[in-house]
């Protein structure tokens, strides 16, 4: 029905049929608007365009990052200088945060308070539950995202950069370049060579234990696989659960696999597996699962699938378990004297030809959403990249180490100092299975497959299952 027909109708009065026809047209034309917007609005993101090969470069380059962190303590003084250089820009800036746990949430608040004081800018913090934030990141970025938001380095960052959902921030990096080692710079660079990410901190995965328990029972820190399994057996006979273990959330077991694979087959093979250039049912991968089953299953706490990592950490805290392989964030479950008693050692060597110089140490940081760049967000990102901001954060959450190499490490606790050493000595650094491989493989496929393996220990079934699904997913 055309416009003049419509006016005609208005004058003459509509017949019932005409009214219906008019309605139909109205529905169609008005309906078109929500339909079109729904096309982008209801969608949810993931990873198909980023070739998995990108993973290899992302993680490989982080190795250099670590080396420089170790030398950071030498140049402590410059931290305060960078803070005072923040311009007073006023206004407000919105900040999307996934720091939803109590300790990190307070720490982020402290950082933002310091920024507000320096720049006169009000920060509206929008905190979302850590897991939900990750689940909804695509919708979030395609909707109306906050200007600055928390995210991870590596493959996970590159994907959104390639989609044009985040803003390139080379201008901000111009002021940061000399404060970051090359590895961190590369970990912040997208596939187009532009910078998209400001690193904040990283933390190593290692085997944590209580010094007092080791001293009381006369245990020594193992460096080889044989020493490690012998120690585990001894702990078992002493009535301890040798290895605290929890996989209710599905991801903690990735850490165990990453380390076993990097120790048995080496870092390069691990990265090739993450990019699926080698098959999951390769004999080398089967050997990893077999070792896990033969050597670690007897040492692991029972019923891991009903336990969260926090509960497992508590059993280490209560001296019911002897060791716990986890990220350094396990320290968040320890306070006071218990925290001082906490120590860690690197995951032991399994094959002397491979060595033990690969470390898992994911980097967390910040990005700016596609339309989020303005003087306020620029100032905030520059501040977050400064040693001052990172040390402010670490004051409240001492389970990480600063990414900025000029950060003064003299205030670090022994655990942090040791972490700087461990990462510094590493030849190669992985980001973690769910950051090194594709997101559409990690959570829907690898996570339940690993849980099933933990339950039934069927090496052939788990590798076949992973390979079958990897073949279907890595085709695009």
């Amino acid at each position: 029905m055309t416009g003049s027909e419509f006016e005609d109708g208005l004058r003459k009065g509509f017949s019932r049929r005409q009214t219906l026809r008019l309605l139909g047209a109205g529905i169609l034309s008005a309906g078109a608007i929500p339909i079109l917007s729904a096309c982008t609005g209801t969608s949810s993101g993931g990873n198909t365009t980023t070739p998995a090969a990108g993973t290899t470069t992302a993680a490989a380059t982080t190795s250099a990052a670590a080396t420089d962190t170790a030398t950071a303590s030498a140049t402590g003084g410059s931290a305060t200088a960078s803070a005072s250089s923040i311009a007073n820009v006023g206004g407000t800036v919105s900040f999307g945060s996934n720091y939803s746990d109590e300790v990190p949430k307070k720490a982020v608040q402290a950082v933002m308070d310091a920024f507000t004081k320096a720049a006169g800018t009000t920060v509206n913090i929008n905190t979302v539950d850590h897991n939900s934030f990750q689940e909804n990141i695509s919708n979030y970025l395609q909707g109306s995202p906050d200007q600055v938001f928390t995210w991870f380095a590596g493959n996970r960052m590159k994907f959104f950069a390639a989609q044009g959902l985040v803003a390139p921030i080379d201008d901000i990096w111009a002021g940061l370049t000399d404060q970051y080692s090359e590895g961190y710079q590369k970990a912040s660079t997208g596939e187009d060579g532009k910078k998209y990410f400001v690193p904040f901190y990283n933390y190593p995965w290692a085997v944590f234990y209580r010094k007092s328990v080791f001293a009381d029972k006369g245990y020594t820190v193992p460096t080889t696989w044989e020493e490690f399994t012998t120690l585990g057996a001894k702990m078992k006979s002493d009535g301890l659960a040798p290895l605290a273990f929890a996989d209710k959330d599905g991801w903690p077991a990735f850490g165990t696999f990453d380390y076993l694979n990097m120790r048995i087959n080496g870092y390069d093979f691990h990265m090739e597996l993450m990019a699926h250039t080698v098959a999951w049912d390769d004999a080398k991968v089967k050997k990893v699962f077999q070792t896990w089953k033969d050597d670690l299953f007897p040492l692991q706490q029972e019923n891991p699938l009903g336990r969260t990592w926090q509960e497992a950490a508590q059993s280490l805290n209560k001296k019911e378990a002897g060791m716990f392989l986890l990220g350094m964030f396990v320290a968040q479950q320890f306070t006071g004297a218990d925290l001082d008693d906490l120590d860690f050692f690197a995951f032991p060597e399994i094959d002397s030809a491979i060595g033990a110089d690969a470390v898992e140490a994911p980097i967390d940081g910040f990005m700016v959403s596609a339309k989020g760049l303005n003087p306020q967000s620029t100032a905030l990102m520059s501040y977050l990249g400064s040693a001052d901001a990172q040390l402010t954060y670490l004051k409240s959450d001492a389970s990480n180490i600063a990414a900025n190499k000029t950060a003064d490490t003299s205030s670090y606790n022994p655990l942090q100092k040791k972490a700087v050493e461990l990462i510094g000595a590493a030849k190669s650094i992985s980001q973690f299975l769910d950051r090194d491989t594709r997101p559409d493989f990690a959570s829907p496929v690898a996570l339940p497959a690993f849980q099933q393996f933990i339950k039934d220990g069927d090496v052939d079934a788990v590798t076949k299952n992973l390979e079958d699904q990897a073949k279907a997913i890595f085709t695009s």
Partner: protein
Amino acid sequence: MSADMTAPSLLTPDNSSGPAAPSRRDRKRGRIRHLTTADKIIIGLMIGIPTLIELALVWFPAVASIILSFARWNGVGSLSSIEWIGLTNYRNIFTIDPNFMPALEHNLIWLLFLAFVATPLGILLAVMLDRELAGSKILQSIFFLPVMLSLALVGVIWQLMFSPENGFVNGVFGSNVDWFGNSSINLWAAMIAASWKHIGYIMILYLAGLKGVDPALKEAAAIDGATATQTFFRVVFPAMRPINIVIVVITVIEALRAFDIVWIINKGTNGLQLLSTLIVTNMGAAGRVGYSSALAVILLVVALVPIVAYLSQAFKEESR
């Protein structure tokens, strides 16, 4: 409506009907003529706006899901980045996804459990409370309370009940059962938690229906010497037909959309896979839009089969 309009004209195919034309037709025409333009616009809006909302929010996503189930797409970027792959998603779901068959099975167990345990219990409670016993108002409130809580909160409450180390159930019975971690029992634990809520919901619906049954029916049955059980099954239950249909449909829908509790427990892994959790796992950060859509279509079909079967049966009986 259109049948009304066309029926008279079928009787009189040619428009040259004389003064002897049926008066009914004139009456109809006359009534329409009395509607003012404003009336028509208002009627148009009243029909049009809901239709529009229904189209945009229900039919469009449903049809889009069906279309996208034949695609591979990560949900980011332009529509031209969608890759059409035919039935591959469905083939992968049925052949290589180890979570699909357990999920389907769990959904069906869930449906059977609600249909044969939780719903009958809710009806039983309603019949009991309908007898106006002392304190029945308080009992009603108690049973209805869980319905007012969000399922997420129900999940948290039952997590506390079933926690292996510090939970209430293991504490009281001195047992050491890993209620949510053991994949052979966690489904049952989750269904108990869901039923706790479902029973109250069915109870209140049925109670409302029972209040509407003419007491004279029950009196007549009692005079004829029927027992309470006979009265319920032979007289009240058949009289409650519309409510029964609603209850069946609600039970099926509740069973198939089960999600919150399981998601809170362990995100639908390790023995708690449901079709709904698989859809979300593949959709969220993973961004397998096509794959999730295919799962959603399967869920839609699974939901339609029992509902359509029951409704067509019910309406057939009605028209007889």
